[in-house]
């Protein structure tokens, strides 16, 4: 199957610090791809580069055949590449409802926004209870739910998730992974970053392992789950 999103030799810098040292990866239609790696490996930077929040100094990023390496973040979102970023980044002084509305900002079809919002509330009943509370006063987990819900409001063509289970209770972690699988079943490919590598590889079709800005391993999820190094370094098995 052909790649929907593909990165070729992407290098990214923060000032003089090189965070990505030539990343090449593909996300193909309809699949979940897991990106795993230790702290500071460059996972977040990869997503930020795809979304255009930081510029790739070298390399090429394409989406559905279009070169988006130099596109602006808002253009990228309009093309359907939607991210639930690390650190939640919800709008603190806006209510839960307004946050969700902003998720649908780039959508042309205004009509179905209400319906989608109900879907999000069905997914996270807690958000419905807190719908007119300011984002900044939500608990950590509530904010995480809001960040994911907000991304879903955009009806993404591809979803980039940066540690979606972070700070969630065990029940919700389960829920989140079900949601991820559900969304994917509707045909949305997902690029997933997770510290919970086992869970991530369990839902994913394929995976990449990132270390200090370089991809050191790639393969099917099953292969990676079975890989000794991966088991040692990321699954916490001896």
């Amino acid at each position, binding site marked *: 199957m052909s790649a929907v999103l593909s990165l070729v030799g992407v290098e990214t810098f923060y000032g003089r610090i090189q965070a990505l040292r030539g990343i090449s990866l593909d996300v193909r239609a309809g699949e979940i791809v897991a990106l795993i790696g230790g702290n500071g490996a460059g996972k977040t930077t990869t997503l930020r580069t795809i*979304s255009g929040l930081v510029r790739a100094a070298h390399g090429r990023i394409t989406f559905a055949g279009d070169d988006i390496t130099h596109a602006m*973040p*808002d253009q990228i979102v309009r093309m359907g590449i939607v991210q639930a970023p690390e650190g939640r980044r919800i*709008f603190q002084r*806006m209510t839960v409802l307004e946050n969700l*509305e*902003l998720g649908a*900002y780039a959508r042309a079809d205004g009509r179905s926004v209400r319906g989608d919002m109900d879907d999000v509330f069905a997914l996270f009943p807690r958000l419905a209870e807190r719908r007119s509370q300011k984002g900044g*006063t939500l608990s950590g987990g509530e904010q995480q739910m809001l960040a994911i819900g*907000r991304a879903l409001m955009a009806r993404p063509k591809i979803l980039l998730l940066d540690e979606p289970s972070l700070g969630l209770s065990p029940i919700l972690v389960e829920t989140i992974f079900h949601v991820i699988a559900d969304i994917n079943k509707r045909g949305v490919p997902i690029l997933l970053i997770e510290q919970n590598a086992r869970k991530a590889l369990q839902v994913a079709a394929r995976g990449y392992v990132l270390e200090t800005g370089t991809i050191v391993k790639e393969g099917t999820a099953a292969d990676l789950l079975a890989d000794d190094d991966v088991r040692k370094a990321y699954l916490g098995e001896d």
Partner: protein
Amino acid sequence: MAIFLQQLINGIAQGGMYALIALGYTMVYGIVELINFAHGDVFTLGSFLCIAILALLGVSASGQIIAGWQGALIALLVVVLAALLCGVIGVLIERFAYRRLRNAPRLAPLITAIGVSFLLQGVMRNWKGPSEISFPQFLPNPTFAFGGVHIDLRELLVVIVSILMMVALQFFIYNTKLGKAMRASAQDRDAASLMGINVNTTIAWTFFIGSALAGVAGFISGMYFGTTMFTNGYQAGLKAFTAAVLGGIGNIAGAMLGGFLIGIVEAMTAQYISDQWTNVVVFSILVLILVLRPSGLLGEQLPEKV
């Protein structure tokens, strides 16, 4: 009593002036968290531009009165042109002096703002000279009297325009897509762009609207005082900024309230204490209010959540 009411009117008129400028301050502050020190000078530039446009239209400071719809039409044309020009200038200022500094330490853009303020003053100084210049008083100014109290058209104009602007702005920010984009960009630029918001365009619009408001204020002020001067933006800007803070920075209605409050306090101080103490009283009240309400009168206070 009449004197009190008369001073109230004086205060509200002057306060409306502050409020009009404060709206632009608060708008820009609310979105980019920058104390745009150049805003007061854009306001003065607005007056200067009005004078130039009026001159092009053949209206000079000679004191001719153009009554009826012709006068209204000219006024409208001048306001719109001045607002547009100021808006564009605001956008240019943002583009060249502030945009590069979005991620710089907070004080860097503050200093460029001060630099731009000096620059604008310098330009105006060399354009029209270092002294007061006359603003053509081409509109008739009928006075309406109620009991011992009178109010004239110019005063009415100041108050009406500032309230209209506030209502329009309030509606705009809370009910339009661009308004929402502005508020989102204000809180988290990266997150906003992840929503598909073009942050650069949004901020440019913010500056356009804020500066256009300064242009409108420049016209109103010219009509009200009949003169202007290249350094006027400093004092007016200071008071307007104070008004914006008093009301709660970033809060549109707050800017309005703050403006009126300062205007009224000034008038009452001039009447019941002494004109020379106006600034002292105004700023003392500011301090007092902020001590009691650290986020201004209408400013929302977000409790710290960790």
